[in-house]
């Protein structure tokens, strides 16, 4: 049973500048349940979305039983023997259970242009009974059933025709134990028929138990494929979170004391659905790291400190008791923020480097309420050069710059503003090693000048290498705190993150 069912050759997908899936080549055997794991945003869902025709492929190809697939939508995928049970609600409300099961395949019941609804309903009920979901009535509206039952209908819809490849994308989290058992049963059935199941889940224990082999994706790249029987959770976690090789660019000092002076404190900060009751203090000249899995709420912390969170509760105050509750107030009180969302929040990409650098500082640049272009240009020129932005001139649009240079412009504006507290969210995301090193050097410089930095990052080594202290978050709450120490390892961290 080791014949190949499906293969992907160098599959690629871009979302704008974001390389979501990068040269993924994978092989799936017949009669195999193949696990696909990775952090959020690692490209798992994007990969299977291309396989099932939800997204167009930007490069590479899928080969099913030796034949290249050219699928444009889910119905075509079904006809080719590929089906998917999606993460979100996959049924359409306003239709009956029958309509949902045969969506896109109604032709089977059409004779001379007339749809035989009765036959369709009969067939659907037959299938439901056969699957053991007899309590679901084929003629009822899908809206009469709860989320779990709707997922069961999706299982019927995706598997009744014995697809060659079934994709189960993060479905089990929304199912009860009984529902999961039903799903596993049908995955096993397909496997025994010699078909292939691609199983995506965040529950590593479940993945190890249910699959034959497991592939790990990180940042859109395939990291490794391992045999499930030999895999351990710890090993998989390490593969998922990953290691960067550029640690020689980090700070080298250890054991230097940090000032006791507190410059900013957060008390009991909550943002619905993101952060719960977070409190911390930032000291003068400190680089404070915040780490965790991408969805742990750490990115919202940056916004909360900057006064940019929509419905934040709790307090963010400066040393003198000033409360920070809006962006203009934060900027006025010397707080700077570089967002993870570089193109929408950090920078006005459809505007010049000049304007981007000057925007937060227009008040200081005005001569008695009058703005002079000469003064603005000199200011932008000075800080763009200082941080060595590669550009044709300050009138160049930011949209034409590479990711690293964009980030430099974002930093240049706050350098020019002279902010004392910097909140940097994923400042080195998607940036090459050279610019990364520049950014780390800049941070070290600022620390020496007595400026305080909050570094929010998904890269553990970056946090270990740059920070005086690191807070670890999990599911919106603080789950651990580490002081700067040479002996800290990634494992200590991961234990608190996952």
């Amino acid at each position, binding site marked *: 049973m080791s014949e190949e069912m499906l293969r992907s050759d160098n599959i690629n997908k*871009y979302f704008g*500048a974001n*390389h979501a899936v*990068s040269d993924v080549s994978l092989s799936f055997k017949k009669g195999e349940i193949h696990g696909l794991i990775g952090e959020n945003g690692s490209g798992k869902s994007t990969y299977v979305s291309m396989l099932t025709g939800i997204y167009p492929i930007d490069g590479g190809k899928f080969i099913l039983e030796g034949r290249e697939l050219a699928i444009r939508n889910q119905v075509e995928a079904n006809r080719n023997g590929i089906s998917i049970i999606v993460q979100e609600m996959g049924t359409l409300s306003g239709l009956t259970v029958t309509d949902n099961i045969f969506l896109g395949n109604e032709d089977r019941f059409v004779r001379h242009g007339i749809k035989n609804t009765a036959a369709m309903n009969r067939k659907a009920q037959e299938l439901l009974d056969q699957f053991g979901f007899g309590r679901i009535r084929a003629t009822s509206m899908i809206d009469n059933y709860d989320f779990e039952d709707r997922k069961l209908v999706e299982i019927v819809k995706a598997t009744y025709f014995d697809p060659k490849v079934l994709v189960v994308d993060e479905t089990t989290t929304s199912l009860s134990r009984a529902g999961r058992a039903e799903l596993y049963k049908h995955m096993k059935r397909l496997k025994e028929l010699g078909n292939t199941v691609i199983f995506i889940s965040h529950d590593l224990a479940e993945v190890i138990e249910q699959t034959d082999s497991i592939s790990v994706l990180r940042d859109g790249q395939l990291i490794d494929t391992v045999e499930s029987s030999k895999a351990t959770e710890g090993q998989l976690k390490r593969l998922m979170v990953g290691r960067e090789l550029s640690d020689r660019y980090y700070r080298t000092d250890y054991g230097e004391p940090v000032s006791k002076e507190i410059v900013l404190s957060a008390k009991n900060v909550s943002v619905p659905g993101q952060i719960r009751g977070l409190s911390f203090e930032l000291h003068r000249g400190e680089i404070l790291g915040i780490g965790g899995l991408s969805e742990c709420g750490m990115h919202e912390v940056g916004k909360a400190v*900057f006064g*940019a969170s929509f419905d934040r509760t709790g307090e963010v105050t400066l040393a003198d008791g000033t409360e920070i509750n809006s*962006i*203009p107030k*934060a*900027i*006025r009180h010397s707080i700077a*923020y570089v*967002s993870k969302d570089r193109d*929408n*929040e*950090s*920078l*006005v*990409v*459809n*505007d*010049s480097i000049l*304007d*981007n650098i000057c*925007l*937060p500082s*227009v*008040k200081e640049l*005005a001569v008695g*309420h*009058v*703005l*002079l*272009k000469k003064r603005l240009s000199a200011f932008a020129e000075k800080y763009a050069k200082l941080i060595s932005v590669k550009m044709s001139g300050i*009138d160049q*649009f930011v*949209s034409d710059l*590479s*990711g*690293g240079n964009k980030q430099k412009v974002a930093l240049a*504006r706050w350098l020019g503003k002279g902010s004392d507290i910097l909140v940097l969210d994923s400042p080195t995301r*998607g940036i*090459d*090693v050279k610019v990364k090193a520049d950014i780390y050097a800049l941070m070290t410089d600022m620390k020496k000048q007595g400026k305080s930095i909050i570094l929010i990052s998904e890269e553990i080594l970056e946090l270990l290498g740059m920070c005086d202290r690191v807070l670890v978050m999990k599911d919106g709450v603080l789950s651990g705190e580490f002081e700067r120490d040479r002996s800290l390892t990634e494992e200590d961290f991961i234990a608190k993150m996952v």
Partner: protein
Amino acid sequence: MTKSQTVTEMKKPRRKYQEFMDNPATRNILPVAGLIVIILLFTFLTGGKIIQPSNIQLLLSQTYMLMIAATGVFLIMTMGCLDFSQGSMLGMASIVICYLSAYSIPLAILGGMVTGAAIGAINGFFLVKRKILSFIVTICTMFLFRGCIAYLTTDNPVYAVGDIFSYNTIPVKLGLTVVLLLLVFFFFHFTRLGYTLKAIGAGEQAARFAGIRVDRTKWLIYILAGAITGLAAFINVIKVGSVTSTGGSMLETEILIALALGGLPISGGALVRFSNLVVGVLTYKVLSTGLNMLGLTTEMQQLIEGIIFLIVVAVFSDRKSLQVIK
């Protein structure tokens, strides 16, 4: 490294045309070239009649009101917003000016500007506080105040005092227009508020994160644009002397076409130039006067203007900013 490389690679197959349009010089020169072409074209078609002094004077006398009203909308569109309520605003302000002109002319002007500003404030309220798209809000207020105008002019047109025509002189109209243009030019280029308008149009969220009070700015600009339209209403009243139920109707479309002809990207943003306003209004007026002189029917004129509008908008739209108009 690989990421930035792939991005540049992806940009390569951009079409020549796009590169041509992205060149800032193209955007500056094309509208002026358009104006010259249209002047030459109509000089030829009307056998030179259009450039006779008497006709130029007539053309200018029709331009003042549009130029002033378009100034406010120019600021709004720079932020990536729209305003369809200008016509109704002008009508309402004209009625107030007519009523108040019986007491004092300065009071009438003030009244007109306050009326415009109040309607602008209503637009701003729904845009900022209720988060409704500007074109929806202003279409609603357009109908709302058109209704008010119809009600107030049901039996008779509203008349201003008879001697208001004494203000209908070139120094008053030209002076007012030039002073306003200079003020707005200064505001647009040399003040903090004016400087931020382009950033709001180019990327509202990012502007917010740079510390710009986006909501407050939007509201202020809608109020300012309303007040400016009040001023346009004064020019309208001294010329016509009365307001009927159709007073000011279609003004919003004329402004929109004029600004588009001037090369203003419909989504606003960093590519907006002050010259878009002046060149656009002049181009539109030469075009409509020219079509009129050729003896075309109103319907025919509208048809031609519509086609030109569509072409110009397609040419000047800023394809890189993919956001919707707010």
